[in-house]
């Protein structure tokens, strides 16, 4: 289920069913499709385990920030235009 939020949606639809990760409700399981944005930040996220193809759980999705879990790693980050994570849903949230 997609979270109803007023976050500006970037019309960069890569593929049907793929959306910016902030549109998924807490508890959703998603597969990361791509990281788009500043190279430095993308590389940092990748080295922290947020990589394309990975299954990620959205633990918290608050207005300005998001908490993701991949494996045993929990990554918190502030939503910004510098990087957008595109993902497709595998399982819905709470």
């Amino acid at each position, binding site marked *: 289920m997609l979270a109803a939020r007023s976050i500006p949606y970037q019309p960069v639809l890569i593929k049907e069913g793929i959306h910016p990760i902030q549109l998924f409700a807490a508890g959703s399981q998603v597969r990361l499709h791509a990281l788009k944005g500043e190279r430095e930040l993308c590389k940092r996220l990748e080295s922290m385990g947020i990589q394309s*193809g990975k299954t990620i759980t959205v633990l918290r999705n608050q207005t300005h920030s998001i908490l993701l879990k*991949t*494996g045993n790693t929990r990554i918190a980050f502030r939503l910004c235009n510098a990087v957008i994570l595109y993902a497709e849903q595998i399982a819905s949230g709470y």
Partner: protein
Amino acid sequence: MPSHPLPPFFTAPLPGPALKELVIAFAGNPNVGKTALINALSGSRLKVGNWPGVTVEKKEATMRYGDYQLRLIDLPGTYSLSPYTLEERVCRDFLLLEKPDLVINVVDTSNLEKSLYLTFQLLEMDVPMVMALNMWDEFVDQGYSLDQAALTGALGIPVVPTVGPTKWGTEALLTQAIVVIESQTKGLPLSFSGPIEAAIQQMSDKIATEPYVSESVSLRWLALKLLEKDPYTLSKINEIYSVDLSNAFPALWQALQGSVGDIERALSQSRTQAVSALAEKCVVLPAKPVRDLTDRLDRILLNEWTGLPVFLGILYLVFKLTFDISTPLVDFIDGFFNGFLAKWAELFLTGLSIPAFLISLLKEGVIGGAGLVLSFVPILIFLYLFLALLEESGYMARAAFLMDRFMFRFGLHGKAFVPLLVGFGCNVPAVYASRALENETDRKITVAVLSFMSCGAKLPIYALFTSVFFVEHQALLILLLYLIGISVAIFWAVVLRKTRFKSDIPAFVMELPPYRFPTIKMLWGSIWVKTQAFIKQAGTVIAVAMILLWSLVNLPYGAPTDQTVLARSAQAIAPLFLPLGFGERWEPVAAILPGFMAKEMVVGTLGVVLSVQQPDAGAVKTTFTQDLGAQGQAFLDAGKTAFVNVSGNLLPTPFVLAPDSKESPLSRAIRDTFTPLSAFSYMVFNLLLLSCISVVGAVTHEFGRSYLGFILFLTCGTAYTAAALAYHLGRLLGFG
């Protein structure tokens, strides 16, 4: 044979065979227990914490192991060796330029997949390596198992399970380390796809004879960096060898780009794919997933509705407990130095016929200075204890995450919240608490605005002036002063972010560690390291300043109050304070300088310079033994009071200022010297002025003199302008 005995130099036993010195670097992701592992191996007390980014600079410990003298280098935690962050640069520079004999790659076994990304990058650097599978106990407890043979086979390096805090596996780790160093065994770097490998080979052939290729740098690694057009490597080569390689080898580069697309991304993807494949091959998942305590706690602690109230509750407790426990101990230390020690030192020195001015200097300057430095220690110890508890439990990272959305609006990073809050108690530990911010710019902005958080020592000034002029609205006025301080801090945070530190607020990306129970050893290590640093560094500055200040207040020795250096200086600069409303007389100005040493001294100095005769309590003659006994009793009482403060009531106490039933001589003198408006202006000036000389010591220690100069300019300028504004605005509104 000589008949006379040989001098001791010749008869001393010859030293044994020299120890072989080896340098072992510990590299790994943040928060995987590198520092704890080094501490376990060497018995040192490097600071640790369950908080990513504890080690920003490299730290070192030494130990002897058999015939080896080991230098253990604690490198900052990094997720990769791409040179984008300070930690990555420190780590990479050390591995490249200082070429350690061995790298121990510390990994969190429960997070092996994430850790392997860095492992592959380390292997590319072609250094002898051993992998420490740290936090093995947590890994096993969660029901996982690991095919160690497969991991060793794939990486070509020994892997050793370890548990840092309990030293489990550390002996095996050292044994393997020595074996690898002596045999010079190196791991297996990742094999990339055909076109990339071919390009690496071609690049290696082209640069093999170039001057910037030395034996200490792996040719394959350098070739990879040049293919990636790694900006840091290119600039380093340009800087050292004056060779610009930014557009070198265009044919090779374009051919590879045509084949694989974005080269840097292709290399990165190859690594991530290899990491996933290896983790899948080696890690056996538990048959039944373990219920994760961290996730369950986070549902409450990071919840949109409950997270913030819980956080504020925890901070309130930290704040209250720190000051409730330490205040009686601070009073005891103050009494011990300025009462007991000063009294008996004076008597002892008088007995030795030492000149009176020297006795005064020793008593008020040296002993008073030492007392001032040490009186901060209880506050620091308890504050560091509670902060260490929050850090090591894993909660601090969550607090930063929770606060980021508010702080972000004011140009500050989420992690700035804790030092700013601590600043309301005391600015000194707050300066040190800013270390939690890994970005230097964020730290500088935070510390610059920290002084506007009214510290506890300023409260006596507000209490005195409000009790004289604003007795009807004391609490309201003091609240207004605190709000002025917060507003000014927000104003400067926004302005500094847009001007001097013009930059975007760094993206908040942070790994939240799992919750862990802190160990007493780790907590004590953390407290000890920080407190010791304060006493050594800030203490020196404070002690020197105390002696200088004594000279100002007392010289020429024996002169009347209005003839001292302090009085004459105050008389000279008093006209500068005319726009602030309190420059017509020199006495208020004279109290500002001692107040700069410690804000508590403003009230005391006003008493002295306004020539208020304090009632003599009547000197009771006591013996040294009686006084010593009294100090012992005072210490016990302080401990008892601290305990009662904690156990008595954790709820907030209403803010009450004891009303003066009879106006004191000082109150009368204040009423004669100030008007209500000039008193308000004086309070605003003291509110916004840098707290005290101890903060000067702390800022110098953390950022150096140049930045201290900027902060002094900022706070003095702001205090002056705001006080002048308050005064003239008040006059315009008819309060003058």
